[in-house]
């Protein structure tokens, strides 16, 4: 279980996150949504351990982040993070890098080699597997980064915008299926940020909507519909919660152009 307890954060004077409380059960798949610059990546970074919040704390499977060396290392073994801007070592081949990543998490060697083979096939990277990362396109690098998170077999996956960055449709489909499978079988607890409503609607067990530094809604898709009284698709529900004036502004825009 992931517990985000009263987390507040600011980089300078402007607050980014205020009193965020979230509980994500084991095997849950939670998607964090929100307008640009609202603090989604900061929240994921805090959960992943990339930064310490100014206030509050994060607990993962009962262990508090950064409370002691042993606990922090124990948490790190359980958490894999996919940054929205990862840096992959260009001189290594994709396979070498995935191996190194899996080895960091003490994945059994034989299992690791076999898993890498399957991942490379799944994301159509087999022909690039033994080429240096520098020869990969941006989309292929993104695929490699996704494989890097999956190959760790971590119990908690924190994924920042996994569906962006030039992924082709087959990779998007593959990732969707993998995440769905992991969550359905309770093999991983997944927290991710995404702005793609169709994917979020299909995958998310719960959706956390951030707006103006706070979590303004945290519920299942059905719960959000009930909360807003809107029976439409996610974009509409999302706009009603996160940005209620958007629909009015759209109306205004067209009314003016008609007049």
């Amino acid at each position: 279980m992931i517990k985000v307890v009263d987390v507040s954060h600011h980089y300078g004077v402007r607050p980014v996150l205020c009193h965020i409380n979230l509980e994500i059960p084991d095997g849950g798949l939670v998607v964090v949504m929100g307008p640009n610059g609202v603090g989604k990546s900061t929240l994921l970074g805090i959960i992943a351990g990339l930064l310490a919040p100014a206030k509050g704390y994060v607990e993962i499977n009962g262990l508090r982040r950064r409370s002691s060396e042993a606990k922090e290392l124990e948490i790190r073994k359980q958490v894999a993070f996919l940054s929205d801007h990862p840096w992959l070592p260009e001189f290594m081949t994709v396979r070498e890098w995935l191996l190194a990543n899996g080895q960091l998490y003490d994945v059994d060697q034989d299992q690791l080699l076999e898993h890498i083979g399957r991942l490379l096939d799944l994301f159509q990277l087999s022909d690039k597997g033994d080429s240096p990362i520098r020869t990969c396109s941006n989309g292929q690098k993104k695929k490699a980064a996704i494989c890097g998170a999956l190959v760790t077999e971590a119990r908690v996956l924190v994924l920042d915008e996994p569906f962006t960055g030039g992924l082709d449709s087959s990779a998007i489909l593959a990732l969707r299926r993998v995440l769905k499978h992991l969550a359905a079988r309770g093999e991983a607890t997944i927290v991710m940020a995404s702005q793609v409503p169709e994917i979020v609607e299909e995958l998310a067990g719960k959706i956390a909507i951030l707006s103006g530094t706070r979590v303004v809604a945290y519920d299942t898709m059905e719960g959000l519909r009930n909360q807003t009284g809107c029976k439409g698709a996610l974009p509409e529900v999302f706009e009603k919660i996160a940005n209620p004036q958007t629909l009015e502004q759209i109306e205004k825009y067209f009314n003016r152009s008609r007049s």
Partner: protein
Amino acid sequence: MKRAIPFHSNAVWPPLPLLIVFAVAYGLIEAGIWLINIVSPGARSILVDMPELAGIRIVILASAAAVYAFFRLWRFHPACNPAYCAWLEMSPWTANKPLPVGPVHVVWQDAVVVGALAALAYWHAQANPTVPLIAFGMTYLCGLNLLLALTRRWTSCLVLGFLWPMLLLPGAKGWPGFVVITAIIVVLWHGLRASLRAFPQGFFQTSSNPMGKRPSSLLQMQLDVRIPVLSSASFDTSSKAIGWPYLVLSPKGEVSSVSIRTSFFLGVLMGWWTYCLCVVAEEAVPPGLILFLGVVLAGIRLLVYCKNVATPFNIWGRFATGRLIVPGFDRVFVTPLGVIVLAALGAALMRRMGDESQAAAGAGMVSLLWFVLLAGGPTLRNWLLTGQHRYGAPRLLSTKQPLREL
């Protein structure tokens, strides 16, 4: 009764290219003298007595001896040759057996080579025959010392760290110097044996296999063969090899901390070096230098600790929230400030002392500063794992090749 077979290897002899380079370098002088003698007969007797010419000859001979000592270590020590090391690891070799390629320790062939150079120095170059011997000995001993550091024989390195500066002391002339040299040789010999006995697990400590495991399966052996970067000693998950943020969030926590005991011994070692330098230079440590050292050391510690991390929020954020002190982050400043204060107090105290006790006092202060600097909390590991900071992408990496925002 089974008699031990004395080790013999022709590989120990200097290789032909080295001999050719030496012969050409040394022969050029002789050829020059011969040519000059042809042009102006009788010049040879004048040239041979020139001290400059003897100087050039002895430099060539000393260089040859030093290069030969370097060759002996570089060619035969497994730590200098990853391929040899990897092969040895897979072989049934143990430290009780001779190294298959050739011995690292000094053998009779070395005596022949160095003896020949000494003889050449004495009879032909008209120079001190001990110079090639000293050049060979010092290069060999210093090189072996470096190899002990490479193979992480820290205790031996520490003892050697105390012994080497003793040679600089005025009292180390004659017999005491001989005793110190003997002690250095004994420690080096013991360290070499210990490092070979620890082979392969404790050889580099970050073992040749990235996770410190022996090949456990056919697949793993295939991996070792097909992907040498993962099985060679050069693979290092503590380097930037793994990328960002994978390294900073690594569950391995590669950064190790300096223990109190190590801090103590390193502190004493630094003090000892300072003392020896003061005695050799016949100068006391100026109090201002102690303060300067304190500031520099504090700055270096801060740089090391904050190299890849940043404060969770900037100074304006501190003012805006009224949290001028963030204990979780600001604890990184405690030890550097302590070192600076200690250095200032020490410098003030030293000014009040007499000149005669300043060398010892300066050495003591240097010891203390290093000890506080290394032992003062938080440890680097503790700081990186539990500090209230945020990890930033190293500049080099972030500018070199980030995934472009799309």
